């Protein structure tokens, strides 16, 4: 009975994480399109949400590989998964509050690593896998995207530089609709699968599903719905940072960042290095800005974003470890996760009541 309660809490928490993932990462898909007026804001987030939903059904190949090769799978329990999710959610909400685009995937991996470390010590963490599968690609991703964005924008300006600005802007805005669509599909495919993987992992750990079973259809639908809903709500603070605070971009820069970003993500994915969408698009935006004029990039904002990237894994790990430690005080029953959920709901109520006192309810995040 107690393990079933924990399972229900883990599934609900995984869907909350999925919502924050969509909410947090909306900016990757829509920020440049909104900034260059390729699409009106509400249409852009609706379009991204619909394609995120569709993307979640495209492939289920990596649904069961969350934190694979990063932590020892034998130490993963429903409480470890729960604590990891809480760590990721807290970091996602903190970076959203400060308008910083950071990787939801790294937050999830960090949360699970921290919880596994708290549960079983350093032996539970596969440091070689963490370095090879997460840290090295995380360093390379924004650098490659920066270089691609910078070279691509210079080539684009060279090719269309003498054409009429009206035609060029209309053309690149149309291109942004296509590249944004590809990004939204890729995001739905990659990120909704992580939640499906987490829920499936919890079902297997609880004995509700055999380890060789397919991902249940209700898991696919609920994960797709949660990420699409989160995307539709839109993390407007991060959209503002990505769309206008790093550089003031034109349509060609928007397409270079977004089109090049989609190409980098899919090309890397093909070779087995799934990269962070957030880092690639942020790097692409900085590259497209610096490629036109180095001083056009607000390097202070860019620096804050890089600091958030560096902090994501350790901060989410620390939160995951703290949450696991707190739950462990109550033993193996459901009391710990229930207490954490109550704390979370209380914190949310305090935050919302303060926002209501300060300003009318916003239409989005």
């Amino acid at each position: 009975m107690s393990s079933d309660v924990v399972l229900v809490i883990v599934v609900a928490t995984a869907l909350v994480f999925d919502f924050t993932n969509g909410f947090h990462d909306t900016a990757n898909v829509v920020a440049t399109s909104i900034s260059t007026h390729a699409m009106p804001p509400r249409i852009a987030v609706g379009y991204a949400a619909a394609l995120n939903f569709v993307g979640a059904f495209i492939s289920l190949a990596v649904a069961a590989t969350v934190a694979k090769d990063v932590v020892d799978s034998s130490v993963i329990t429903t409480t470890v998964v729960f604590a990891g999710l809480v760590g990721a959610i807290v970091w996602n909400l903190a970076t959203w509050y400060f308008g910083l685009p950071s990787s939801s995937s790294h937050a999830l991996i960090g949360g699970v690593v921290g919880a596994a470390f708290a549960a079983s010590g350093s032996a539970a963490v596969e440091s070689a896998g963490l370095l090879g599968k997460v840290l090295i690609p995380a360093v390379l991703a924004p650098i490659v995207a920066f270089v691609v964005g910078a070279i691509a924008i210079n080539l684009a300006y060279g090719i269309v530089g003498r054409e009429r600005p009206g035609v060029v802007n209309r053309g690149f805005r149309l291109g942004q609709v296509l590249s944004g669509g590809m990004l939204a599909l890729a995001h739905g495919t990659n990120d909704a699968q992580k939640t499906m993987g987490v829920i499936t992992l919890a079902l297997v750990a609880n004995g509700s599903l055999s380890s060789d079973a397919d991902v249940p259809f209700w898991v696919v639908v609920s994960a797709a719905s949660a990420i699409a809903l989160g995307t539709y709500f839109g993390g407007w603070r991060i959209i503002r940072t990505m769309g206008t605070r790093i550089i003031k971009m034109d349509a060609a820069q928007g397409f270079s960042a977004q089109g090049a970003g989609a190409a980098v993500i899919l090309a890397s994915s093909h070779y087995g290095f799934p990269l962070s969408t957030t880092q690639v698009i942020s790097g692409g935006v900085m590259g497209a800005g610096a490629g036109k004029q180095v001083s056009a990039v607000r390097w202070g904002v860019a620096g804050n974003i890089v600091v958030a990237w560096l902090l994501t894994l350790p901060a989410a790990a620390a939160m995951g470890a703290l949450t696991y430690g707190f739950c462990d005080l109550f033993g193996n029953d459901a009391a710990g996760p229930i207490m954490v959920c109550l704390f979370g709901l209380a914190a949310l109520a305090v935050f919302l009541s303060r926002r209501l006192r300060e300003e009318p309810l916003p239409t989005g995040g």
Partner: protein
Amino acid sequence: MLATLVDTKALLQSVVASLVAGIGITTAFAILIFGISRSAEMARNERTALATAAGALATLAFLVVAGSIVLGIVVMTTK
């Protein structure tokens, strides 16, 4: 040291593919816009041969862009 932690060959291939695909798609799309713009301008000036050549360039660029989109969806479905 690095080679024991990460598949350096796959990583290098990934970087090269990212550079080629990322720069290639933006370049192809810019050529598509250039071709359409020039084709319309040449047609207005009644320079049919140049309009046709620019139109052909735009068509080629369009095929590259459309092919890249199809390839991207194939990568998503087969990974």
